[in-house]
Structure formats: C-alpha cells, structure tokens
C-alpha cells in the first residue's frame, strides 16, 4: 500500500529543508571554507539531483491526472538539470557560468507548472492555496537567483536562494490532502481529515 500524497510531500520537504540549510551555511561561511572538504561541495547539489531522480517514481505512482503527471515530470527534469549542472560546476567539468542559469530556469518552470496545473481557486482547499503560493514564490525566486549567474559570490543573493528553498520546504510541510485554508474548505474538495 502506498503512502498518502501528503506524506510524500513531507518527505520531499525534509530533503528540501536539508538543501536549504546547506545553502544557508554556504552563504554564511563562503565558498572557500565550504569547499575545504571535497565531499561537502557535492553535498547539496547531489541531494538536489537525487530529489529530481526521486520525483520520477512520484510522477509514476502518485499522479491521478495527465496534467499532474506533466507537472511532476517537469519538476523532475528541471531539478535533475539544475542539480546536475551544479555538480558539474563544482567538479570543474563545466566551466561556463551560464550553467547557473539552470536554477532560475528550474524555478521558473516549477512556478509555471504549479500555477498551470492547479485548476481551483486559492481558497478552494489548503492544497490549492499552497499550489498558487508555491507557484508565485518560485516565479519570484527565479528573479532572485538570476543575478547569481553573474555574481555567484554575493552573500545577499546566496542567502536569498537559501531562504527561498527553506520557505518552499515549510510550504510543503503545510500540505494536507484535504484540509481547510484560513477556515475555508470547498464542499467539493471532500471531507477534511486531521
């Protein structure tokens, strides 16, 4: 028997939170100290790539409509692309700073996928609200991480990147399969559970 969709969201939230904390630490100590141990340089890009890989089984087993499947597939692809590009940059195999464009791209695609695949209004249910909120957060995030392509050492933009990732994990932790948002739950959404 498969776990509920909300549980899968929480598991991903935990992974994303870990990536966010690593990004925050890197922003605080700077890349020189962060990369003093080789394995640590690969840590968060590796986890991000792994989360992208794990999104494929989620796409296969947890989506109940074509549009959900496309959205999860898009997230899997862009997360693998951005994580993989970051791994290549850390390893030195990729040298062009333009590879850092993969993060704004991943965020923009994720945001659009969230907004497009949510068919209901903001206050339909908590999941609908979170889809809209996550979508717009990702679109704003794409603009915030874009300057990192040209200013990869900027503590402001690096911290912004980290805090956005942490915020995304918090939103995913708030997800419930059927639950009210601000006391409102459409009767069409179903019966709320804990």
């Amino acid at each position, binding site marked *: *028997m498969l*776990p*509920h969709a909300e*549980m899968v969201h*929480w*598991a991903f*939230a*935990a992974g994303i*939170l*870990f990536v966010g*904390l*690593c990004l*925050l*630490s890197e922003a*605080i*100590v700077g890349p*020189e*100290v*962060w990369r*003093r*141990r080789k394995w*640590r340089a690969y*840590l968060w890009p590796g986890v991000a790539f792994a989360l992208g890989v794990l999104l494929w089984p989620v796409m296969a087993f947890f989506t109940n409509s074509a549009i959900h499947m496309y959205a999860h597939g898009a997230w899997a692809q862009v997360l693998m692309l951005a994580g993989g590009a970051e791994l290549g940059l850390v390893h030195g195999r990729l040298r062009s700073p333009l590879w850092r464009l993969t993060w704004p791209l991943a965020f923009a695609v994720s945001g659009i996928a969230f907004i497009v695949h949510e068919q209901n209004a903001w206050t339909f249910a908590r999941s609908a609200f979170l889809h809209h909120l996550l979508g717009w957060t990702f679109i704003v995030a794409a603009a915030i991480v874009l300057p990192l392509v040209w200013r990869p050492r900027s503590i402001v933009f690096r911290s912004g990147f980290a805090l956005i990732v942490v915020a995304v994990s918090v939103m995913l*932790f708030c997800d419930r399969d059927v639950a009210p948002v601000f006391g409102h739950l459409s009767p069409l959404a179903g019966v709320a559970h*804990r």
Partner: protein
Amino acid sequence: METTFTRSNPAERTRRTTVRSKLISLIGPATIAGGVIWAILQPYRLTLLHPVGEGFWWLVFEPPLLVAVVGVVFIAVVARPLLADLEEADAASR
C-alpha cells in the same frame, strides 16, 4: 615614502569568524526547536504518542519529527565539520 596598509586586521577577522561560527551553530538547534514547537502545538501530528490504530505510513511520516531529524542530521553531518574548518581557516589566515 612607502607605507603598508591592511584591509582587515586580525581582531576584525576573528570577530567575523566568531559571528559566522555562532550562526552555523544556531541553524541545527533552531531547526530542532522548530520541530519540537510544532509537536507541542499539534501533538496529534506525532502518531508515536498514540500509535494504537495508526497505519504503517502514519507511523513513519511524522512531520515535526522529520523537521527535528533534519536538524540532527545537519548538526552531525554539516555543522560540526564546518565549524572545525572555519576555525582552521581563521587560524591559517592569522
């Protein structure tokens, strides 16, 4: 005439390292505290406290516990070695 100047003195560098060390030391405990506070506010989310009748997955995925576990893993895997490296880097630059 030739003069030398310093961009930052050792005391300033040490102070900056101390602030960074404190911030890194705080991240893990703050995350664990987040999980604990969540568990206190919504104890029904911790199915371990009332496991009778709960399904397998409800016992595996307990969001406040997941948050606290992330904090613990971060302290063990990232924060401790990073703090050691930060001190090393500071000592090397003196």
